[in-house]
């Protein structure tokens, strides 16, 4: 049962940060509330002050930079990302991933920032955004830093955010020409059990760049650089064996655990399956875009 709390509505990021500083452990940022309020209702956590970031001007919204980077305000709901034309044209993999997050009610109010900051291991965006080398901007009163998304995640339900720090923006650089990204997930409970993001760049029949990230399986979503190395600079035509090898490496590196979603063994197997399928789909996507 939800216990009473005070809802604060700051007018700026600085004011929000100040509120966090003032109330310390008793305060928490509140975006869509789809995680926070649920956990509070269950009595798992309680905060006396919820600091609403949805009303802070400039924190919600999507825009494209001159260099083609996608800048996403932390308080942007999933539903906006799912339907924004610039996202679906320039970053179709992100639009598709977003369209498949949770259900429409959660997507309508749940935000990308909330998803990343909650750091629930069973989630999608954290894995896919890493193959774009996305960065996140963290702000507090009187300071800001930008770090690779990868470094935001410290452990299950744990980020590197300081107590008075907010996530304000997610920046997604565009992929090189002749590239495509694909995200595939698998699961049968409410949340994903395994998610694999792949981005490939092709040049002269070779894989010029391969990026792989795995999420949901282990404690945090991670880039799989050893697995990427297996595919790097390979002729596309004979990537099959390397792909199986990359799958095995990624599976081992994924720190799979056994839980209600399935056994570690099964999840490792699925990492291999999804990696192969995602990679092949990405190759097909590059080929497809070149035919057009």
């Amino acid at each position: 049962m939800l216990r009473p709390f005070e809802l604060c509505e700051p007018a700026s990021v600085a004011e929000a940060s100040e509120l966090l500083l003032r109330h310390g452990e008793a305060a928490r940022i509140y975006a869509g509330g789809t995680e926070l309020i649920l956990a509070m209702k269950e009595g798992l956590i309680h905060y006396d002050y919820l600091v609403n970031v949805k009303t802070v001007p400039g924190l919600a919204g999507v825009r494209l930079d001159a260099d083609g980077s996608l800048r996403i305000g932390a308080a942007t709901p999933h539903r906006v990302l799912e339907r924004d034309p610039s996202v679906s044209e320039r970053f179709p993999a992100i639009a598709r991933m977003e369209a498949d997050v949770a259900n429409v009610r959660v997507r309508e109010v749940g935000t990308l920032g909330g998803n990343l900051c909650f750091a629930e291991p069973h989630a999608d965006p954290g894995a896919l955004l890493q193959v774009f080398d996305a960065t996140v901007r963290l702000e507090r009163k009187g300071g800001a830093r930008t770090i690779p998304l990868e470094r935001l995640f410290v452990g299950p339900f744990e980020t590197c955010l300081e107590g008075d720090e907010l996530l304000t923006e997610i920046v997604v650089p565009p992929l090189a020409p002749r590239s495509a990204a694909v995200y595939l997930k698998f699961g049968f409970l409410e949340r994903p059990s395994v998610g694999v993001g792949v981005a490939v760049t092709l040049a002269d029949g070779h894989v010029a760049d391969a990026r792989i990230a795995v999420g949901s399986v282990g404690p945090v979503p991670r880039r799989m650089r050893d697995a990427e190395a297996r595919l790097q600079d390979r002729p596309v035509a004979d990537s099959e064996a390397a792909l199986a090898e990359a799958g095995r490496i990624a599976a081992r590196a994924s720190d799979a655990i056994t839980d209600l979603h399935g056994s570690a063994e099964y999840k490792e197997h699925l990492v291999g399956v999804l990696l192969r399928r995602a990679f092949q789909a990405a190759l097909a996507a590059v080929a497809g875009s070149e035919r057009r």
Partner: protein
Amino acid sequence: MSVGRAATRVDTPAKATGRARFISDVVVPGMVHAKLWRSPVPHARILRVDPARAARAEGVLAVLTAADLPVKDLYYGPAFKDQPMLADGVIRYAGEPVVAVVAETAAQAEAALALVAVEWEELPTVATLDAALAPGAPVLHARLVPAAHFRDLTALRPIPSTNVCHHWSYARGDVDRGFAEADLVVEQTFTFPMVHHYSLEPHCAIARVDGHGITVWASTQHPFPVRKELAEIFGLPLARVQVIVPYLGGAYGNKSYTKIEPLTIALALRVKRPVRLALTVEEAFKTVRRAAVRYRLKTGVRRDGTLVARDCEIHYQLGAYADVGPRVVQKSAYTAAGPYRIPHLRINAYGVYTNTVVSVAFRGYGVPQLAWAYESQMDVIAERLGWDPLALRLLNVLKRGEPLMEGDLPIDCDFAEGLGKAAAQIGWNEPTAAPRRGKGIACTIKAPLAPSVSSAMVRMHADGSATLLTGTVECGQGARTALSQIVAEELALPLDRVRVARSEVGMSPYDQATSASRSTTLMGLAVLRAARDVRDQLLTIGARLLESERPALTLRDERIVSPRGERTYGEAVAAHFGTGGELIGRGTYRGERGHAPLGGEAPFWEVGMAAAEVEVDGDTGRVRILRYVSVADIGRAINPRECEAQEEGAAMMGIGHTLFEQMIYDGGQLLNPSLIDYRVPVMSDLPEEYRSILVENGDGPGPYGAKGIGESGLIPTAPAVANAIARAIGVRITDLPMTPERVWRASDRARRRAAPAEGPST
């Protein structure tokens, strides 16, 4: 014509606009709120409860343990009086209520729960069938007191000094000789896990005690049996116990028989205020579930395909208390061998206590668990004999008029017709369009509740409109609509001139239960008779008014019509009484006691047939149901759309336990009592193509030849899908649910067996 029409449900406007009253809308002046402290451990002796700190918390009126409840008998239950309202010295499952806190607000009661101090000493836990049946296992109930409420539950056979609270057995022919005569004997063990009903509305009760007696607003499918039990517990005449049932937000058996009503009343007695106890979804998970089953099934068959012998050994994993489990055991075991002709048959069924959530009635009443085994095994037999599974069924399935059980109703439908329709719809003989696809079929039977009783009253008012008084509970199944249609049909009234009064035991005539797919058929008969009673009275009055012979009169468009003129009903009622007044019709259905092995005679058999086509992703194990066909033999559809809705809903529920649902225990701890971790079917799990076929031969005992419907749709689902999976990828799965990991593991094992030289595949 009202019957046979897809009339819009009479409760649709109220439900669509939010005006329908559910129990959560009921506010009783002065009511206060209860919350329960539930045991974190599965089996323990309670050493001490310290209520002091909680009692001092803001708003708290009382903190009560079993010893504090002002009741004649702390224990209740439809089979045995084995379940205490609050744990009585011993905790028997994790989640069992131990202490009740009553406070001015629900939030205050909940806050005070954290201040309740309980000390206990843990006892060894028996959370599985194996543990509960092991020699020397701790016995959960040393002494069992039969409840003696129901005739069929008076002859229960507990095995003394064990956890078996009921052993039901049956035999005919000579099973050993049968196996000796068989050319092929197949023996397998199938399991079906614990499953939660998950109705949108969890259990809730509001109790008020005053000079008139007890009034309880309850979420129950059994207002009359609940009243009886409450009258006993609180030592009151039946007439002083009022049970009021608003619309139920889903039931599926989880609201059958007595649940939280006695405790809520006891609390109200103590605090001398009306008390509301509303469970959360998580608490509902810790209150009710379906019995898990392990079924060892051995079948002997001749080379020519005829079944000769079956030996059925079934263990039902009941929970910490029996609830209606013993009846689930015997009713379902009764049809454990399926709708087949089997000369030599032996059935041994055991209900076993374990330190887990209480298993109660659940749509299908144990039969889905058993059909899962026997219909899976039919396909295994077909495969071993090289037979087509449909042909094997057609050869062995009972024909109309053949006996299923001696002394009981002979088979009252044509299985061949239904199976033929299912097969035609799924394209049984056409090849699948792609690899890794397969089709499966299943054919099942369920015995109804017998004997049973229902009464109804129809009041025709001075303006010719009518009110139906029925104890049937509307739990979303559309009962009010179907029963109204019967009244409208008999009295030539438009549907909107018929109203169903809310269900209150003090006003409605007796009804045994809203369960067992019986309401439209058996309550329907009572309603039909009550309406005909009114009709009769109208005709008598009409004959006098119109100076006609009765046979010359008919009812049409709210009028009594004769060749010599006509009168509206209103005119007839007014003429009869002078001024106001109303005609009152009465109707009763009373089932036959009969001489069948379980007593009672089935008024009809509920049969369910299904065919499914699936596609299996061999790499992930994901099963996609491409097409699903459900066939119900229902005699006559009073409302075809509602019948289809029952079939669709049931099939969807069946898909849940087939592919996803299971309550997962670690030791005695339930790990997934929430919808995040317990997977119910959702819209995206719908089969790509779904068809339900209603077979209407007018051969049922109900109004206009109707038979019961509502449960049949989920009984054949699991085996139909498993059989389709087996034909798609050559892998037989014997444990539910068929999760992707399970399917992957089974197919991976099969792959390894087929090609042992190959390394692991990815």
